[in-house]
């Protein structure tokens, strides 16, 4: 394609063009944050496909009561791997990948602070994921659920090696996450361009920064518990072996000390993406930057004080239940603040409904549903009824799919042109959004009711009670519609890479620094940085008559 505009030097050709001339080795050996970011994204996309296929297998098995498509053992391995994959090999790496690619660009840096450590964290992810999946070939995948409650996860009840692969695999991934967190913190603290003060950080970068502190504090709790589980299983220790005096509840406390901050680890950066997309496509500055930023800190602090709300049914007693209910209810406040600030940003704007914006608006409503059902769990007598049922399955998917995946989809449509130099097709993009919205709600909305009428989660089949078969069939149909939407998305990526519209530097008229360089950016990101005198340097350039810095922002 000779009509490709070459702005600065040869390295700014669109991605596919470069790929033809670069060898595999250049990717494997790279320490460039952009290449590493792309490999993070590709890795999580591959695991997303694996986790998605697992979900569809589960939905086939559950389509009708008493089905025998999957054996109980196969089903239990698949649901365990679905959850573990989606949390550790999709949600975390897709966000780390986006952060890896975007943070240095958004703060005007050449690269991350520790480029070789960056490569280490990527390869720990890749090999940790492969290690976990190797368990399928080594006598069976783990089958104790993604949180592997003891003593079910102990040798006496899970004698195959699946749980050993789980513990070691997650341990490897945990180290990778901690390394990446240290790197991003160092980058954001030390590598900001002149003028990019902490108070001027784009909200995505701000939320990534807060998230890395969560990772730094929460992942060691997981790795410590995994070590104890491994020592129990391989060296016959008794941390969680109840038969010889260990404690089953100790594992739960340790695991959720990690597990609840984990929810915010995979949600806060998604909030950050929404905080970039909504202002740009509304044509307005974010409403209440300070409130959005401060509420993120509040969520992060509170996230460490609510872990036992996952344990309201274990019999901790009223005083402890009550204390954890207070924390869990409080966390709804800073989350609600964000929703209102985003809506206020749209208010009075000139909204362009690109695919990125559609996903962001879809996120607002879907995530609100997940957040509100979350409040019903904090009113814990309700939790005593509906925890560990399909009501909970619905809740967590509204948070993690309606929340994180919708936000990431929005972010991908928004930043794809920066990463590859080509604009994803809006036609396919809009079809992707609407089909996904319909499929997602068909799959998960009725699961609220399925849980309420008594269906527990994690069952490989169920009795033919009134309504159960119908609602499960609706969920299964919805899941396959989501599958179609994902295929459309993959097709969109493929045709865009081959023949997509050339994006140019700043196709959306956005305001943050990554749009001040070419698409894709050159090796060291910027030829020349614009002056940074406010949170929106490119707005200031485009509006010399009304720059943000005049308002002291």
């Amino acid at each position, binding site marked *: 394609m000779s009509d490709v505009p070459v702005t600065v030097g040869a390295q700014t050709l669109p991605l596919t063009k470069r790929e033809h001339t670069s060898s595999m080795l250049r990717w494997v050996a790279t320490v460039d944050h952009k290449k590493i970011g792309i490999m993070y994204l590709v890795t999580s996309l591959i695991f997303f496909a694996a986790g998605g296929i697992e979900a569809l297998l589960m939905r086939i098995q559950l389509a009708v009561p008493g089905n025998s498509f999957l*054996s*109980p*053992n196969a089903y*239990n391995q698949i649901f365990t791997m679905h959850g573990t994959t989606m949390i550790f090999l999709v949600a975390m790496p897709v966000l780390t990948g986006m952060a890896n690619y975007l943070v240095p660009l958004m703060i005007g840096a050449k690269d991350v602070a520790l480029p070789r450590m960056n490569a280490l964290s990527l390869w720990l992810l890749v090999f940790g994921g492969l290690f976990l999946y190797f368990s399928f070939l080594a006598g069976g995948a783990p*089958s104790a659920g993604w949180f592997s*409650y003891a*003593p*079910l996860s102990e040798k006496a*009840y899970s004698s195959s090696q699946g749980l050993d692969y789980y513990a070691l695999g997650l341990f490897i991934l945990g180290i990778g996450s901690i390394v990446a967190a240290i790197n991003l913190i160092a980058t954001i603290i030390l590598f900001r361009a002149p003028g990019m003060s902490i108070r001027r950080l784009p909200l995505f970068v701000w939320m990534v920064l807060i998230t890395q502190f969560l990772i730094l504090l929460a992942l060691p709790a997981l790795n410590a518990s995994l070590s104890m589980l491994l020592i129990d299983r391989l060296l016959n220790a008794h941390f969680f072996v*109840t*038969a010889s*005096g260990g404690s*089953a509840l100790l594992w739960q406390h340790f695991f959720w000390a990690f597990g609840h901050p984990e929810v915010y680890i995979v949600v806060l950066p998604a909030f950050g993406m929404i905080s970039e997309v909504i202002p740009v496509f509304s044509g*307005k500055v974010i409403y209440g*930057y300070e*409130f959005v930023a401060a509420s993120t800190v509040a969520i992060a602090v509170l996230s460490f004080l609510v872990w036992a709300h996952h344990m309201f*049914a*274990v*019999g901790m007693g*009223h005083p402890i*239940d*009550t204390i954890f*209910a207070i924390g869990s*209810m*409080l966390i*709804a*406040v800073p989350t*609600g*603040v964000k929703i*209102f*600030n985003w*809506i*206020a940003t*749209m*208010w009075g*704007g*000139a*909204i362009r*409904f690109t695919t990125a914006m559609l996903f962001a608006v879809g996120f*607002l*409503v879907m995530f609100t*549903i997940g957040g*509100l*059902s979350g*409040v*019903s769990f904090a*009113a814990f*007598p*309700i939790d*005593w009824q509906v925890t560990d049922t399909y009501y909970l399955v619905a809740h967590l998917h509204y948070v993690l799919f309606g929340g994180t995946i919708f936000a990431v989809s929005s972010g991908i449509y928004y930043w794809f042109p920066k990463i590859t130099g080509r604009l994803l097709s809006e036609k396919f993009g809009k079809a992707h959004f609407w089909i996904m919205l319909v499929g997602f709600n068909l799959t998960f909305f009725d699961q609220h009711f399925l849980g*309420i*009428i*008594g269906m*527990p*989660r994690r069952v*490989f*089949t169920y*009795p033919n009670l*009134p*309504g159960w078969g119908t609602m499960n069939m609706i969920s299964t149909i919805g899941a396959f519609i989501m599958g179609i939407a994902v295929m459309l998305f993959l097709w969109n990526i493929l045709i865009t890479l081959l023949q997509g519209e050339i994006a140019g530097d700043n196709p959306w008229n956005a305001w943050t620094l990554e749009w001040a360089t070419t698409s894709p950016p050159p090796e060291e990101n910027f030829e020349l940085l614009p002056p940074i005198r406010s949170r929106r340097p490119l707005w200031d350039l485009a509006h010399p008559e009304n720059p943000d810095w005049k308002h002291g922002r």
Partner: protein
Amino acid sequence: MQNGSPFTPASTLAQPIAHLFVVVGMVMIAILLLVTALVLYASFRYRYRPGAREPHQEFGRRGLEIAWTVAPLILLVYIFTITVHAMHRADPEVSQNRLPDMLIVGHQWWWEARYLDSHVLAANEIHIPTGKLFLVRLESADVIHDWWVPQLGRKMDAVPGHPNLFWLEADAPGTYLGTCAEYCGAEHAWMRIRVIAEPQVAFEGWTAQQLAIPSTAAMSADAKDGEKLFQKLTCSNCHSVSGFTQDTGVGPNLTHIAGRETLAAGVRTNTPENLAKWLANPQAVKPESHMPNFQLTNEQVRYLTAYLETLQ
């Protein structure tokens, strides 16, 4: 038999939770409608129109933002208050010297019930008198299970090494369905519960019947052969029949198996045909269950079925 939900409570313990759920649910729906309406209004009203002026850049309004921080906080204080109220009514405190009426033990994958006064042993199907608060001590024999009968109140985990107490009560006679709600391994799906609530008199009748030892006088020839087989094979290593073998607590007590509604914790209805299928190959009916396939001959299955069917 009723298809239970927390919204059709049949117990003074489930009632306050239903009430709380309705109130919180209405608040949730109201907020969802508000947010959706605002999003949709903004989406249509403030769509980009060609030639429109650049929107006014508003950086935020402190007062408004404080308002939408404080308003949810007030709402949450209200929800917290009714939560604590519901907690006390749904899960009343147990006084120190109150002894439990029943011990329920979760096993992979069935429920054992011991009535501590009458010494009745039951499995998976639990009878209670209506209108009486039964105090249950809940334990686990292996991994974590969870007792959940939606119409009768809260769920409670059966945690090994951590016994829990909870109240069980039903207002009206009926069969209330429940299930294990904590993932407990391969057959978690088939760990169903039936609570049969009946008036005091009927309950006493049931108790007396459970304590009686089934008569062997009128047994058929097949059943007599089955009884001998039951002794000769290894059945009694795990299963006991009162007045006949010692209680082991490993597998369900079979003294009155013929009177139960289901087999293997809800997998099949209890008919002679299903019982024969189960005996012939338990792993085909409930894979991974701890009852092995004993490779019984068709004849042996017939005898054992005939015998077990006499245990009313």
